């Protein structure tokens, strides 16, 4: 037995046979790259850089989603992450729904986790009140993110929204 320098513990590997589908809405290319690297091996990752892309992906595969990761401030988008969450939860007032956001399949149960680098600008209670399930801060701690996704699913089973 010899001492070694400690490093972060690796999250337990998931079953590679059937990977859960995760949608990540993120305008920053470097953050999408990081997510692809760190989540891509355990999840099937759908990446959207704008509200429109997110809506298209939800329309195509919304019913299969395991979780949605949502950046809050989105460049080149009409809706920010909060409004987009309201839209996915069917809580956005009709006059605010853009044309590309009409007739989306409702996502009442899929956990939506906000991922934001704006420390302190958003309060978790406020984000939960629009239909989110959790606030994760950037830089993302992927152990924490994995645990949070699992926990959100457990909570969902225990207490349907």
């Amino acid at each position, binding site marked *: 037995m010899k001492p070694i*320098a*400690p490093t972060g513990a690796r999250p337990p590997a998931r079953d590679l046979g059937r990977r859960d589908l995760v949608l990540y809405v993120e305008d920053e290319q470097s953050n999408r790259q990081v997510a692809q690297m760190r989540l891509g091996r355990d999840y099937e990752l759908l990446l959207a850089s704008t509200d429109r892309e997110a809506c298209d992906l939800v329309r195509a595969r919304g019913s299969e989603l395991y979780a949605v990761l949502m950046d809050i401030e989105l460049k080149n988008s009409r809706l920010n992450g909060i409004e987009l969450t309201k839209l996915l939860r069917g809580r956005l007032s009709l006059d605010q729904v853009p044309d590309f956001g009409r007739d989306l399949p409702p996502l009442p149960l899929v956990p939506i986790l906000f991922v934001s680098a704006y420390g302190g*600008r958003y309060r978790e209670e406020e984000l939960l009140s629009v239909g989110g399930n959790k606030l994760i801060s950037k830089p993302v701690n992927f152990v924490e993110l994995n645990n949070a996704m699992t926990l959100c699913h457990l909570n969902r089973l225990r207490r349907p929204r």
Partner: protein
Amino acid sequence: LLTALAASSGPLVAARGEPVAPPLAAELAELGAAARLDRFFVFSLDQGTRERPGGPAVVMLIGGTEARARYHAAVGRDSELLPMLSILLTQAAAALRNAQLYQELLDERNSLDDKVKARTGELSQANQDLTVALLKTRESERVKMEFLANVSHELRTPLNSIINLPDGLLLDFPRVPAVTCACCQASFALEPGEVVAGTDSCPTCGAVAGFAAVETVVYQGEPAQTRQYLETVVRCGRHLLSVVNDILDASRLEAGRVELHEERVELATVVDDVSRAVGALAAQRGLQLVLPTLDASQTLFGDRVRLAQILINLLGNAIKFSHPGGRVTLQVECPEDAVRFVIADQGIGIAVADQERIFESFRQVDGGHTRRFGGSGLGLAITRQLVLLHQGRVWLRSQLGEGSTFFVELPRRPGPRTAVSGAPGGSS
């Protein structure tokens, strides 16, 4: 006639429509001066004739420059005029004096009113200025917070890549089974087939219980240098992140924007959090970290995350300023209605003269220390602010070269909170 009289000047103008005979005029003038009257008139509307005396004389007095009074009196004959006038003038003077006093009183009251009005005006102006100043302050405070949020975003976004990409690359290195000491978090690679028994003691900290309980995997293998470089990038990124967090934390605390999420907290869970955070650091520096064993009955009303932050800051400092091989201890004492954390090290110590300054923002004992020991220099400032938010106090006992002992005393159940300024802050 009246107009003519009023327009004329001189102490005594007319009596019975004719100029008053000089001797009488002189006497009347004296009387007038004695009664402090500037001007007065004596006249009669009914001048009468030689056979029949005129009607009652009318005396009109004008006293002072401002006060005015009219005094009527009936005077039968010329012979009665002078004594009558004497009485009249005395009375008139008194009346005028009264009128003057009354006038002064009125003036005084008016000027008082004016003063009060002026003062009220000044006050409301001052109030308005204050409101404006307050709004400006709030606005600049808001702008500052907005700026901080943007800085936070700009710093955290690149850190997401800096920390997570190399960390992800490390996952591709071969991993070996290893154990981690539950006490000091030091990791040890296991040889193939090697088994650690529950009775083995940790080579680093000597703890027995729990040493074998945690099994983990640690990355090893060739090329070792690449792995080390990646680990360095991750470590430096995490350090930078902690500095960024400190700066944002300190700014928010100073602006009163931090709100505690208070609940009943088991001290044992806080010590667990603390152990996880600083155990590895102590092991790396070859220090013995002695943490207390607490039972579930020991609780405190406070913010679990912030309580851990207080202890992590103080233990982190103790570890940072210790000599290799030294010992860092955390003790928990329970004086009545309070919990006291005692963090002691055998490190370089702090001169008495520096002991107050170190709680100020951006301070280590001297500029050189920041470079020598790293860190944002904000840890103790944050610690003190967090302790104050918990309505506790923090102090230290130390001598240069003799190690330091920090004390944090928190009430078990804080009293009613005095107003916490600013809007509630969010989790970051």
